[in-house]
């Protein structure tokens, strides 16, 4: 073999045990860095949640405990949590009611302007939301819906609809039509087939949509801040207020509570749902 090529090929041969040790150490360092990066902000939240007093510059809180938990569960935080949960539930139910039939039709029928309709739901996420919602607040105000639960529900739905429409359309499209045709063949009406064949088969999609919409509404901040003030408070807005007000323990507890549904879902998703659904979570 040619000498020059041989020299070049020898260059590629990887050597020594020393290099393997170096590589293993690098790998371990990388893992530690990753753990630090991911958990540093989160652990700060956890520490502050269980802190009673902590003065700078001590490395650890002077007094820890459930003091602030007891305090907040009786006060405004609990009210904010309640409102937030209630709103999220209402938003989820309404969204699914409005979008599931539409999604089925979009999947099965030759709907005019199908692509345009799907795109419309995506637009609230393509443009900066704040300026738009500022003007929307005026509209809601004129309709006497500002600072009310209904107003907040509506502003949440603007952004939530896309999660349900897109997910359910894709899910219905993936169900072979022959399964429904078999039911019609045997005499079932369209409606009955929908409820007994299509909908049960679409359950994973329904679960995904429910989770996505619920989480979106529970975590929604911008619209709630504008529309809900001053009477309707959800947990994100409450957390914001207490954070900038330097009530750090309370804010951190609120933050932890906000994270709980998300973490639970992470565990569920790891096992059950596909990564397409996962990527939609990143937009919340």
């Amino acid at each position: 073999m040619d000498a020059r090529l041989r020299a070049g090929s020898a260059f590629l041969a990887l050597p020594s045990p020393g290099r393997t040790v170096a590589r293993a150490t690098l790998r371990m360092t990388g893992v530690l860095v990753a753990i630090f990066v991911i958990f540093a902000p989160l652990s700060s939240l956890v520490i502050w949640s269980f802190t009673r007093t902590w003065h700078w510059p001590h490395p650890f809180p002077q007094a820890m405990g459930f003091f602030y938990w007891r305090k907040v569960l009786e006060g405004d935080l609990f009210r904010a949590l309640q409102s937030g949960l209630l709103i999220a539930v209402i938003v989820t139910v309404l969204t699914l009611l409005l979008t599931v039939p539409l999604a089925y039709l979009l999947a099965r029928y030759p709907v005019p302007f199908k692509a345009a309709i799907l795109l419309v739901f995506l637009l609230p996420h393509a443009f900066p939301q704040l300026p738009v919602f500022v003007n929307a607040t005026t509209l809601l105000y004129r309709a006497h819906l500002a600072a009310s639960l209904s107003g907040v529900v509506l502003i949440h739905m603007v952004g939530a609809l896309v999660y349900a429409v897109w997910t359910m359309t894709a899910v219905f499209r993936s169900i072979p039509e022959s399964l429904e045709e078999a039911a019609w063949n045997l005499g079932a009406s369209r409606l009955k087939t929908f409820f007994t064949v299509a909908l049960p088969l679409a359950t994973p999609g329904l679960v995904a949509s429910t989770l996505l919409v619920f989480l979106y509404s529970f975590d929604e901040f911008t619209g709630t801040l504008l529309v809900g003030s001053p009477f309707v408070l959800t947990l994100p807005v409450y957390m914001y207020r207490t954070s900038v007000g330097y009530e750090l323990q309370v804010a951190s507890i609120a933050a932890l509570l906000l994270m709980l549904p998300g973490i639970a879902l992470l565990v569920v998703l790891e096992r059950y749902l596909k990564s397409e659904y996962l990527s939609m979570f990143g937009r919340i």
Partner: protein
Amino acid sequence: MDVRVEGLVKRYGRVTALDGVSLAFPAAGLTAILGPSGCGKTTLLRSLAGFMPLDGGRILFGVEDVTALPPQARNTAMVFQQYALWPHMTVFDNIAYGLRLRKLSAAEVRARVEKVLDLVEIGRIAGVTERRPGELSGGQQQRVALARALVVEPRVLLMDEPLSNLDAKVRQRLRAEVRRLQKAVGITTVYVTHDQEEALAIADTVVLMDGGRVVQAGTPQDVYFRPENAFAAEFLGVSNQLSGTADADGLSVGTQHVSYSGPLRGPVTIVFKATDAILADSGVAADGRHAVLRGMLEERLFLGSAYRHYVRVEGESLMIDGAEPVDHGPVTVRVPMARLQIYAAP
């Protein structure tokens, strides 16, 4: 360069893909590895390349034990079944990739790429170096893949069913090309295929594998005419199998009798090829040099190059190929004794 593998073992969970495989691949020769799906031939090839760690055994390139080396360090080159030509690089960049990794100068790279393009006979196509692989035909892409492998002058050339993605006609033509190239360059080549005709046509050595083990290794003629066991006999060519019993008087096949002077006794498997048998109307007598069996011709298909007759003998359906069609009905099957392979039944 001589390549040897000793006692290779590879397991995937419960499945043993390689079960103690030991082989020698002669220097500058083309060794074809042949076998049914799942026999381990691709696993063997990929372990030579270093794409998978082994559970046991050694691989030797010359005197060097390369078993622990990663693929980058082994200096082998593989030609993939689906070519694996990078679609975002031009033909030139595809071929030059290995050379550039070896830090050759731009002038060197250009010279070598042009030389190898001529070797695989696509150098003459105008502007071929600037085209993307997607713009070339299948046969041309395969030549580029070959060029990419040959240009780095590897110690071993590994080919993973390189022609099976091509049309039958293109395959026939490229077969001869591959053999010509291999001889011209003189590189030790391991060629995996499931097409036995291809293996017999181009190889210096044929290795037949089944279930992770080597069944037989030898020249193409060895393996075809002198199969060592029933599997080998059955795998190569279009084969027929009959069960019989051997004793001192001869072979009993069902109710029929064939003369036999070999050493085996007890249940045996009789194998012969479709092209070795002659079909005649009933009533032809036996003679010492032929085995004669009576059967019923049930079906006849026209293949173009021959007629394939399906004859039922003692419950088995046999395939007999012949240039002339024979009519349905009772027939005689005559096989020269020299072409009957008889093995002890398991």
